[in-house]
């Protein structure tokens, strides 16, 4: 629900378990309670995409029979699996550009236990037209952090179970050029293009590749994107929003001419989905000009990275609670 400050305060005072996304100017006015939050002024509501600093996107987690919040840094973020309930789900919000975000991005796919506990969440952000920074809030203590992640662990009733899903509008041509990397990294200089070592930045410029398109890898039929953050012509480094991994084959995504139409097409198969939480990527919002455009049945914050177990890019992520 996309509500004003008074309505959010009322829900907190009623003791509801909440996940909240909003501009920091609103979050700092919230009373202590059963909630966590992250900063963003961008949302895709049921009425469409909007930039707002006077409303909050609130998910009430009514299915929770118990809850707890926890704060993590890069030294203990994978304690999230130990702290989670045996039958539950964890919401994880991490500030953009924090050490814990970088660490989680790189290490989550190698974590032994992470897939045993549904973890969904996002990277909090800020108004890109300002010099703000991203924050997260632990509503139980009222504390905010720019360098720590916050989690809301919820316990589900015995007859329910959490299920996570993603919607990725990008795809690849399997016959397209294959790009591989020799190490797990958030920043690279070299890559293998169809087996031949080249400078990745030169390859991108020489081939006039649109860097708004992500690299895509196939994870057993699930297409996982890695978005390009920046390219330094000087140092010849290419920085990513999520890591690339050795041993994976990447291809640049096919161009998407109309993001809203593409989402509409992909969302056809989700008509029966009843998400309790979803978020979508700021790059989809910006590149796809999603302001004013809705993505039913999904509504939620627009984020600087998405978490469905591991960190994802340019992807819509959602969580459902289903019958066992």
């Amino acid at each position: 629900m996309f509500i004003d400050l008074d309505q959010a305060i009322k829900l907190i005072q009623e003791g509801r378990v909440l996940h909240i996304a909003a501009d920091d100017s609103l979050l700092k006015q919230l009373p202590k309670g059963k909630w966590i939050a992250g900063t963003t002024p961008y949302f895709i509501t049921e009425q469409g995409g909007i930039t707002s600093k006077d409303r909050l996107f609130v998910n009430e987690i009514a299915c929770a029979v118990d809850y707890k919040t926890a704060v993590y840094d890069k030294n203990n973020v994978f304690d999230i699996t130990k702290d989670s309930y045996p039958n539950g789900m964890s919401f994880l919000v991490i500030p953009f550009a924090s050490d814990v975000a970088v660490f989680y991005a790189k290490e989550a796919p190698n974590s032994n236990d992470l897939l045993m506990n549904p973890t969904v969440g996002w990277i909090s952000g800020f108004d890109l037209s300002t010099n703000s920074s991203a924050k997260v809030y632990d509503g139980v203590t009222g504390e905010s952090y720019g360098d720590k992640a916050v989690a809301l662990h919820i316990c589900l009733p015995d007859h329910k179970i959490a299920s996570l899903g993603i919607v990725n509008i990008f795809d690849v041509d399997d016959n397209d050029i294959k790009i591989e990397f020799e190490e797990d990294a958030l920043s690279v200089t070299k890559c293998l293009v169809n087996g031949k070592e080249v400078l990745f930045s030169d390859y991108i410029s020489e081939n006039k590749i649109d860097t708004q398109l992500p690299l895509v890898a196939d994870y057993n039929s699930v297409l996982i994107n890695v978005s390009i953050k920046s390219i330094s012509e000087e140092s010849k480094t290419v920085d990513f929003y999520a890591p690339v991994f050795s041993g994976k084959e990447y291809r640049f995504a096919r161009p998407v001419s109309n993001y809203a139409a593409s989402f509409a097409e992909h969302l056809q198969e989700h008509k029966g989905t009843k998400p309790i939480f979803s978020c979508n990527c700021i790059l989809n919002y910006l590149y796809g000009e999603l302001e004013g455009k809705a993505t039913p049945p999904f509504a939620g914050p627009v984020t600087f990275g998405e978490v469905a177990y591991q960190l994802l890019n340019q992807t819509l992520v959602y969580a459902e609670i289903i019958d066992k």
Partner: protein
Amino acid sequence: MRKKLIKKQAKYESTNLGLNLLISRLQRKYSANQTPEELKNCLQEMKAFFEKYASIMEKDIEALKKL
């Protein structure tokens, strides 16, 4: 049958995001260390996953038996 999957000698695509990520992760893990012990570890991980999610993965479990 699950051995074949981990060794990439068989292919199975689930509709469950977690299972697909798990298969991909275990294939990568085993590929980097192709030893009987690693295979055993991977199989144990897969078993634990199916035990936890048995109630919503009946179709996957049955389909994997037929691989």
